[in-house]
């Protein structure tokens, strides 16, 4: 296991200097530079590297979908219920649509839902977690109670109920529903970290120097839990991808959009397994699983950043 961790000395000073958290790189607080540094640090973890590759590959497919897909994903011009052929690599649906093209275009919706719901859930988690952690007493009690309530209520049944009631379905409905039900884990972790950071000297110093609450929470405390925020993002994104697939499989998504979940839904509705078209079930499920796994893999890298005990030994 030859893994170069962040602690290892950089091979060439010009290349590795930004990987290390040093005064030189801290002087340029541009978000893009920060993101680049975070990506490079993650890249040094083998599991995270595999995850980043899969995500990058999916994003590439999603962006270049019109170039890659041989046919339109919605055109119903092919022989229905056909197995894999030279024109339809993965076969066709019962409506005569090309499944391979649907798989290519489907990556767009799945990625969008995963990333958007993950980001939204993280935003809620960070806000609630930070406020609860920094404001002990009644505010903390109430927010912690809400967080614990959201944790114990089974997420998928709640999502199913919400999605069943919300009729005007677009993918944003799914994004909202998933975000609404998957912020709690992150909020709890961030709250407990904020509680310990609250009593640090530099925070006390900031309070005494008269900084406003907003600035203290977001400029002093938040930057010290970047890895927790990232972890809660990737965790929520994983949950979002699986939840989206489940809701769409139940027919609670928008059946007129093409996503991996709706391919599964139509495959089940048209009894693809009974007609022997197992590829219609296998391909979208595997794609969903791979994307979900890749987010988890990236999270390994994030975990290792925050807990040196979990770091892979070089």
């Amino acid at each position: 296991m030859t893994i170069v961790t962040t602690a290892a000395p950089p091979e060439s000073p010009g290349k590795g200097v930004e990987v290390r958290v040093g005064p030189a790189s801290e002087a340029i607080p541009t978000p893009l530079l920060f993101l680049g540094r975070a990506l490079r640090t993650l890249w040094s973890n083998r599991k995270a590297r595999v995850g980043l590759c899969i995500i990058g590959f999916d994003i590439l497919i999603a962006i270049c979908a019109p170039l890659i897909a041989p046919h339109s994903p919605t055109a119903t011009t092919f022989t229905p219920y056909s197995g894999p052929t030279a024109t339809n690599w993965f076969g066709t649906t019962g409506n005569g649509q090309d499944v391979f093209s649907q798989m290519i275009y489907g990556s767009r919706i799945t990625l969008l839902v995963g990333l958007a719901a993950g980001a939204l859930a993280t935003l809620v988690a960070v806000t609630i977690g930070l406020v609860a952690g920094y404001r002990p007493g009644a505010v903390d009690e109430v927010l912690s109670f809400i967080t614990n309530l959201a944790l114990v209520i089974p997420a998928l049944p709640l999502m199913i109920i919400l999605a069943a009631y919300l009729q005007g379905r677009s993918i944003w409905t799914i994004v909202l529903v998933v975000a609404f039900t998957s912020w709690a884990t992150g909020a709890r972790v961030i709250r407990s970290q904020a509680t310990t950071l609250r009593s640090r000297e530099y925070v006390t110093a900031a309070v005494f120097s008269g900084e406003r609450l907003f600035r203290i929470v977001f400029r002093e405390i938040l930057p010290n839990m970047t890895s927790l925020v990232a972890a809660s993002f990737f965790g929520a994104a994983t949950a979002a991808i699986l939840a989206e697939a489940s809701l769409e499989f139940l027919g609670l998504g928008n059946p007129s959009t093409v996503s991996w979940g709706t391919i599964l839904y139509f495959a089940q509705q048209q009894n693809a397994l009974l007609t022997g078209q197992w590829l219609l079930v296998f391909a979208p499920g595997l794609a969903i699983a791979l994307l979900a796994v890749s987010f988890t893999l990236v999270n390994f890298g994030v975990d290792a950043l925050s807990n040196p005990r979990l770091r892979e030994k070089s």
Partner: protein
Amino acid sequence: MRYRYLRRKVVLFVITLWAALTLNFLLPRLMPGSPVDAALGKLAAAGVPITNAERTAIEIQLGVPHGNLIAQYWQYLTGIAHFNFGVSYSFPNETVAQAIGSAAPWTLVLVGSTTIFAFIIGTLLGVYAGWRRGKGADSVITVGATFFAGFPPFWLGLLALYWLSFKLGWFPIKGGYSPGLTPSLSLSFLADAFKHSILPALALAITSLSGWVFGMRNNMINTLGEDYVTFAEANGLRTRTVALLYAARNALLPNVTAFGLSLGAIVGGAVLVEGVFGYPGLGNLLYIAVSNHDYPLMQALFLVITVSMLVAIFIVDLLYVRLDPRVGE
């Protein structure tokens, strides 16, 4: 004081229960659109004569204002206390309570045995992976668990159904027991039901292993760094003794608290897995309710699932005091 800990847990349980009941009450009332007409249409289509009383019952259930909100809330709570969840329109001959009552035991057995199975296997794998950290076995276990955690359980179920049941004929294709049998506690029926439960249980267990594996592996790694473990090693105790009796015992504690929460994930997975297998449990019922827009049944199922989760977590909390006397202090 242990007494204070228990009292706090009981109070929290009661408040959480109340909040969940209230959430269930508010959800349909906050949602746009009126499902009542859809509901009445379904009932009429099923040939159920709609009396005024029936209409009122459905309207109350679905949140059409009858009196002020407080009066509705009171009606809702008394209805629950009497297990009166109204009529389902997926099953015109049964009340919602009857439909749930006959489905609950199936899910209880399926989810219960799956959770215990996943807990034992996952924890053992986690102990081993943590102990052999960085070695080949650790990589195989963690990578394997990661991959299975990404699989949607219903998808794994579909594939197993196709290859193991449909193609190879090793397992029955649908349902919780063979058609023609009447549910009883006879040995032949139980054997038949067991055969039907293997695939759904496996699909659920495999996809829920990872939580236990990672929780236990991380706890092990942290525990192995403790002084008492180093001391035990220095005393020349056998490796297995140190791993299991010194490190694993203490690493297990945080995992027990995760027990209740993991139940939620398994119950969620069970909804779709039962739907895929046509397994006659609560999940399948929810699957049917969703496809039929059966709002009363949906609402009642959500309530039953949530309340059982809360009770399960409460019981785990109570048992935890016995496992770790420190929490009471």
